[in-house]
């Protein structure tokens, strides 16, 4: 029992993340993702259209809000995707900072604009609902304000990546911003519990205390899965396009270098 615990032989090297490194190779990712893309796109379209049409035309009106409650079939999925997108952005940023994966940098770059778009949809649809229900398009409520901060974090991330001549510096700075900004996610989720907000509390709970009737829950869940798949499809397609653009650029540069010799 006299072994030196600091010697390299005694430190067990785990295989943590080895599969991740394997699939984080841009070329391998491209080969895997391209055949899957048409299927992803088809499922996204079918589920999103089903959820939206069901919610708009066939779901029952709310006993209190009437047809105004139909907003939730677009507003709630957009809100969930905007937060999940930022969580994915933070995870990519973590991998980028720790393991310097080029795919993580590219993924973060492509998630930003898509996530910002879904956050804008969430804000605009909520604002359009707020006018008839609250009498104002905007109030400085904790939930609304924290989602607005999320939108600005997305914009800041998009801008910061492109703010440096050296792209690697941009990736590094944007990754730090994304990780620091992740503190906003629990604030958004718990804002309706921590403060007295005009925004209603959580209606759906995965612990079984959902306050929504089943005929409204089904279209909402289908629209939500559709929106998530839309997000995944869009980011995957943009990521594939970005990898191919880089490869094209690299090939052109290599040929230009070859002809100069």
């Amino acid at each position, binding site marked *: 029992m006299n072994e030196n615990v600091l010697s390299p032989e005694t430190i067990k090297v785990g295989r943590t993340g080895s599969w991740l490194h394997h699939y984080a190779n841009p070329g391998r990712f491209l080969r895997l993702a391209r055949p899957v893309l048409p299927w992803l796109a088809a499922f996204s379209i079918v589920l*999103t259209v089903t959820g*939206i049409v069901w919610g*708009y035309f066939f779901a029952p009106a709310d006993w209190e809000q*009437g*047809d*105004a409650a*139909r*907003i939730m079939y*677009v*507003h709630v999925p*957009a809100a969930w995707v905007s937060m999940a997108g930022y969580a994915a952005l933070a995870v990519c940023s973590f991998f980028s900072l720790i393991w310097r994966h080029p795919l993580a940098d590219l993924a973060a770059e492509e998630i930003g604009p*898509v996530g910002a*778009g879904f956050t*804008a*949809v969430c804000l*605009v*649809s909520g604002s*359009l*609902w707020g*006018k*008839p229900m609250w009498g104002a398009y905007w109030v400085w409520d904790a939930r609304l304000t924290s989602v607005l901060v999320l939108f600005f974090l997305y914009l800041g991330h998009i801008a910061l990546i492109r703010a440096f001549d050296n792209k690697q510096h941009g990736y590094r700075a944007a990754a730090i911003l994304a990780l620091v900004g992740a503190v906003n996610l629990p604030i958004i989720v718990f804002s309706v519990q921590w403060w007295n907000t005009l925004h209603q509390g959580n209606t759906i709970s995965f612990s079984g205390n959902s306050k929504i009737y089943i005929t409204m829950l089904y279209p909402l869940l289908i629209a939500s899965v559709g929106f998530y798949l*839309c997000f995944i499809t*869009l980011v995957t*397609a*943009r990521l*594939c*396009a*970005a990898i*191919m*653009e880089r*490869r*094209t650029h690299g*090939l*052109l540069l290599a040929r230009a270098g070859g002809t100069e010799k």
Partner: protein
Amino acid sequence: MNFAPFIDGSYGVTVVFLIGIAGLTFARYRTAVKRLKAVETR
């Protein structure tokens, strides 16, 4: 109050966004595929 314009507006914004970003992404993807193929076969 008539809610219809507000709800229709919300759905309209969402559908326009989804179609718009899908169209832009598809166009970018197709262009990237074509350009890469052209450079690889040149």
